[in-house]
């Protein structure tokens, strides 16, 4: 949490001082690194802090499993709280690169923060590896040789639910999302693979508290299923009110609405609800079993995908640093080493496509009660295999 304690004014003063003395930019990594510094960007204050906490803790567990060393080199983690404010994120990330000499930036929960730090980071030829945000902007024409993401392209997750709805034979689906860009993208993504009829689309304000008006609409429309994207507290309210209104017999298909970050508050209300995901805690591979077990022991809560992707990022970098023998200054070699993705992912299948977005499987997951009474998502069936996002073809990187 080092960054958290430094006032913004001090940071600005520090960066301007550096800039005026002309010491800021020149290549820092001339000699083989004595140690590696990684900046982990996560939102740790404000209403969405729970997601950033998952992401940070996933990284920390990765580093612990690696004995604090990436590729055998002692590694220091600098945690950067972006406060979900793009301007703050840019200031802090610049300071981390220029003053703290951070070698690689990882993390980032939200797309708007990622969009803000994209140029400041990659223009200094520093690798930026997103472990959650995966907007379409950087997947197609905007793809970048210094940018990777270990999560997914947002569109894919929504389209998975469209495919799942079609596969399940749902013909009439009611769609409801918040009225902002990501909400509209979710609807577009869902429709891209859904072949039935969308009975109605409802857009609610991001500040919505009570869903009773929408629930009455759903009841009167009598759909075969509903599709929704309601992140964070919105999802908690919707899920509980949906159950209370007696609508739970209508299948609840969702993205980023029921996962391990919201299930503690949704509890039994979410049982049997569906989510689209690339990962779930029950995935049966050795890497994942160890990750979930140790994560729960260490942090005392069930990890969500944010944590798993962040853990994968640590393992990915470990493999890459090992491949280049610790010579981080050789950017070409490091890029090739990261792109090789020669690590064992908690998701099983994992490879990078031409645009540095993962090519991976997507799953239909369902909320279930574990033996210990806690709730988690569990895989139901694989919906898409080795899926490439639809922007990859537009990327000119080869």
């Amino acid at each position, binding site marked *: 949490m080092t960054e958290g304690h430094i006032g913004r004014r001090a940071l600005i003063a520090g960066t301007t001082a550096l800039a005026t003395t002309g010491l800021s930019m020149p290549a820092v990594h001339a000699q083989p690194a004595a140690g590696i510094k990684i900046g982990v960007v996560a939102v740790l204050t404000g209403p969405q802090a729970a997601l950033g906490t998952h992401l940070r803790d996933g990284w920390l567990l990765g580093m612990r499993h690696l004995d604090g060393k990436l590729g055998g080199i002692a590694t220091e983690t600098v945690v950067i709280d972006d406060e979900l404010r793009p301007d703050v994120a840019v200031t802090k990330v610049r300071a981390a690169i220029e003053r703290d000499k951070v070698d690689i930036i990882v993390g980032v929960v939200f797309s708007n923060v990622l969009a803000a730090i994209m140029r400041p980071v990659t223009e200094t030829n520093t690798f930026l590896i997103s472990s959650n945000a995966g907007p379409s902007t950087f997947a197609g024409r905007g793809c970048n040789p210094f940018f990777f993401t270990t999560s997914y392209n947002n569109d894919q997750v929504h389209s998975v639910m469209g495919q799942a709805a079609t596969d399940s034979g749902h013909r009439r689906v009611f769609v409801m999302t918040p009225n902002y860009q990501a909400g509209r993208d979710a609807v577009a993504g869902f429709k891209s693979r859904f072949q039935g009829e969308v009975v109605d689309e409802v857009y609610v304000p991001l500040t919505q508290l*009570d869903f009773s008006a929408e629930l*009455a609409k759903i009841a009167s429309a009598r759909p075969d299923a509903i599709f929704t994207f309601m992140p964070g507290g919105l999802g908690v309210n919707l899920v509980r009110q949906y159950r209370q209104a007696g609508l739970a017999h209508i299948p609840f298909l969702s993205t980023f609405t029921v996962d391990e970050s919201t299930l503690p*508050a949704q509890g039994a209300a979410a049982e049997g609800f569906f989510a689209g995901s690339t990962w779930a805690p029950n995935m049966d591979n050795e890497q994942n079993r160890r990750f979930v077990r140790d994560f729960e022991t260490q942090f005392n809560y069930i990890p969500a995908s944010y944590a798993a992707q962040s853990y994968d990022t640590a393992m990915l970098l470990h493999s890459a640093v090992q491949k280049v023998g610790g010579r981080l200054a050789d950017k070409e070699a490091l890029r090739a080493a990261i792109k090789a993705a020669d690590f064992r992912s908690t998701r099983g299948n994992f490879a990078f496509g031409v645009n540095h977005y993962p090519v991976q499987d997507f799953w239909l997951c369902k909320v279930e009660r574990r033996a210990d009474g806690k709730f988690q998502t569990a895989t139901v069936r694989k919906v898409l295999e080795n899926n490439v996002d639809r922007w990859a073809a537009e990327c000119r990187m080869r």
Partner: protein
Amino acid sequence: MSATLLLVQGLNGLQLGILLFLVAAGLTLVFGVMDFINLAHGVQYMLGAYLAAAFAAWTGSFWLALLCALPAALAFGLLLEWLVFRHLYDRDHLSQVLATFGVILVLNQGVKLIWGAAPLQVPIPELLSGGVEIMSGLRYPVYRIAILVTGLATAGLLWLVVERTKIGMLVRAGATNAPMVAALGVDIRRLFMGVFGFGAMLAGFAGVMAAPILSVEPGMGDNLLILAFVVIVIGGIGSVRGAFIAALMVGLIETLGKSLMPDLMRLFMDASSARQTGAALASMLIYIAMAAILAVRPAGLFPVRS
């Protein structure tokens, strides 16, 4: 849209209005009587919800939690008054806004330190957990009916206290002309403190009641606070009756607007843009209504000061 659906939406609107009233009643009293802008009223609502969650987890009973949370909310309100707010009564509104905004930041961060950033849940009490089928396929939770009834009872009780008791008379007098009340030998500071504590408790009560249907999370009061300010401005600052009428109005406009606007827009444009325009217009509707009402009655529906 069928008549049943319309009725159901009306009921939903009333229920949102009642919840708004519980928050706005305390706010309008504090603002009206003490001429004190308390932005921190929303976090007191949040605190009520968190206290309910904590006590419910501790005692395992919603009723015990309610019983413990109310005095705790009152005590916390008084503590805040003593620590921060009483030093601000003589300052201008800008200082009050700044200081109470600071309180919001501190308390939002505070609950996160104690309870974590992830949303919490409060289970619906067993007694009120059922539902009534009001239209085919839709159950109206008994708990929501309970909120309606409690809200109406609170409104009635408040009306009685404010209109029919000596304390209520002092409160009304204080809202009209505080220096004069003080000159007549009433300890206005103590009256203020009482009103403030009571307002904080009302907000806390609203938080407790909302906790089983809404997610309990840091910052949950911030959205509601804006609506509460709209309510008290429409109703006339300081008027409990105004707050009640305005809260029901806002609840109904918000809910009916949301459900009718997209259909209404479809008369003028194609379906997909109608949905988005309708949704956007619906969320503006209460502010448009506020502007319209203020244009006709600049001091609100039931102005206290003439």
